[in-house]
C-alpha cells in the first residue's frame, strides 16, 4: 500500500478531486498548507513597511491506494494539477505500513 501526498494549487483542488474519484478512489484528506519551493514567496507592503512572505499557501491532498493503483493515481494527479507554470507543486509517494478502519477493525487493503 502507498500513501500519496500532493502539494497543489488551490484552484486545481476541484479538478484533482473529481479526476481521482472518477479513477476509483473512495476517499481523500486535504489540508491547507504553506511552504515554498522554486516558486519562492513574494513581498507585501503596508504603509511603506515591507514584508517578505516566504511561505506560499497551497493545498495538500493525501490519498492512500494499493501498489497497483499507484501509477494511475499519480498520472491522474499530474494531469489534473498541471498548469506548466512554476508553482504547480509536488507529489510525494511513500510506503504505508498498515490501515485500520475504526468502525470495524478491518486492516490492510480491506480497510481501504
Amino acid at each position, binding site marked *: 500500500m502507498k500513501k500519496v501526498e500532493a502539494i497543489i494549487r488551490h484552484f486545481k483542488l476541484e479538478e484533482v478531486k473529481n479526476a481521482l474519484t472518477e479513477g476509483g478512489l473512495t476517499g481523500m484528506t486535504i489540508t491547507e498548507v504553506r511552504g515554498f519551493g522554486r516558486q519562492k514567496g513574494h513581498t*507585501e*507592503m*503596508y*504603509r*511603506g*513597511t515591507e*514584508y517578505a512572505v516566504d511561505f506560499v499557501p497551497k493545498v495538500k491532498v493525501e490519498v492512500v491506494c494499493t501498489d497497483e493503483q499507484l501509477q494511475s493515481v499519480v498520472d491522474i494527479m499530474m494531469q489534473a494539477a498541471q498548469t506548466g507554470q512554476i508553482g504547480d507543486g509536488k507529489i510525494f509517494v511513500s510506503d504505508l505500513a498498515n490501515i485500520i478502519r475504526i468502525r470495524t477493525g478491518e486492516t490492510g487493503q480491506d480497510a481501504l
Partner: protein
Amino acid sequence: MRRVRCGSVLLFVFFLLLFPQSLFAQEADPATNPGHLTWMLTSSALVLFMTAPGLAMFYSGLVRRKNVLGVMMQCLFLMGLMSVVWALWGYSLCFGGEGKFIGNFDHVFLKGLTMGTETPGELPGGEVPDLIFMIFQGMFFIITPALICGAFAERMKFSAMALFSVLWGTFVYCPLCHMVWGEGWLYYGSEGSLLGGALDFAGGTVVHISSGVSALLAAMMIGRRLGFGSEDMRPHNLTYTVLGAAMLWVGWFGFNAGSAVAANDSAANAFVVTHLSASAGALSWALIELIFRGKPGVLGTASGAVAGLVCITPAAGFVQPMPALAMGAIAGVVCYFACGKLKATFGYDDSLDAFGVHGVGGTLGAILTGVFATQQVYPDGPNGSVQLVIAQAAAVGVTVVLSLVVSFVLLKILDITIGLRISQEGEVRGLDIAEHGEEGYIS
C-alpha cells in the same frame, strides 16, 4: 376612522389654545431653532460613530488576530469611560469660566446646563442649547484618547490604558480644549492670546496634534512590540480597516461640519472641503504608492483619505474648496513618507501610525490653515498671511510641548506604579486572552 382623526385634530387645536406661548415662542428663539438642533444632534451621533465602529474597525484590522478584541475594547470602553469623565468634570474644565489656560468647576456634574443658552460663564455654542453643545463636544473627548491607542497597540495593559486616558483627558485635553475653543490663550481674537491666537475649526491642535505627539511619546516609552522587525506583523484583516476608514470619512462630516455649531453656510463649507480633502488624500497616497511600489495599495488609499481628513480639520471653516484639494493631496504624500520613512529611520514602533497620520497630518493642517484661510469663507477671521502662519505654528508648539511634557509625567507615574506593559507571556498570547479572557475568532 374619520371620527378619530377629527377628534385628534380637535384635541390638537385645544392644546394650541391652551399653550399658545410654548408653541409659537420657540420659533423666534434661535436657541431652539429646529434646523440647528437637528444638525447638531446628527453631528454628535456621527462623531460618536467615528470612535466605534469607525476607529475600532480601522485600528483592529491593522493588528494581529490575537489582539483584535483588545483594540476594539479600547475604543468601546473609552466611549463609556470618557463620557462619564466628561459629564463629571471634563466639560467644566474645558468650557467653564473665562480662564486663560483651563476652565473652572462651574459646571462639574453638568451643573447649570439646561436647554437654554444662557447658563453662567458665557458658554460658546450660542446657536444650540448648552446641553447639545456639551454632548457634541463630549464625542471629541472620546475619540482623542482613542486615537492614541494606535501607538501602543498590542502591548499596553488595559488598566494602564484606561487610567492614562482619564488622566490625559483631564490634564492634556481639557487645558488645550479650553485654550483653543474656550476663548483662552490660543483662541483667535481673544484678549491677550498668543500672537493674536490661532485658527482651529474642528480640532487640528486639540485632537490630532495632541493625540499624535502623545502617541509617539507613548510608543517610545512603552517600547517596541516583541519581535518588531523580525516577526510577521502584517495587518490581520484589512477589510475591517478599509470599512473603518470609510466610516471615519462619513463620521468626519459630523466632526467638521458639526463644528460650525449650527446648520449654516459655515457648516456647508466645512462639509464640502472635508469631502474634497479626503478625496484628494486618497488619490495622492494611492498615486505615490503606484510610483514607488508599482501598485496602488488599498491600505494606502484608506490611509490617504484619513490623512486628508485630518489635515482639513483645523481649516474646514476657513478655506475654500480648491485649497482643500491641495491640502488633502499634500497630506497624502507627506503622511506617506511620515509612516514609511520616519518610522524606519528612527526605529520607533508607532504600531498603527497614530503619529504618522494624526500628528504629522494635524501639524500640516494647522500650518496650511494659516496659508489658505480666507475671509471669503469666514468674514470675521483673518486672511492667510505670514503672521497667521507664525501664530498657527506657535499654537502647534504650545500643543506639542504641553502634550509631551504632561504625557511624559503621566506615563512615568503609571509605569512606576502599575506598569504600562503587559507581561511578555501575555504579549505573546495576545491581549484578547491575556487581558480579556476571550478570543475574537474561534477556530
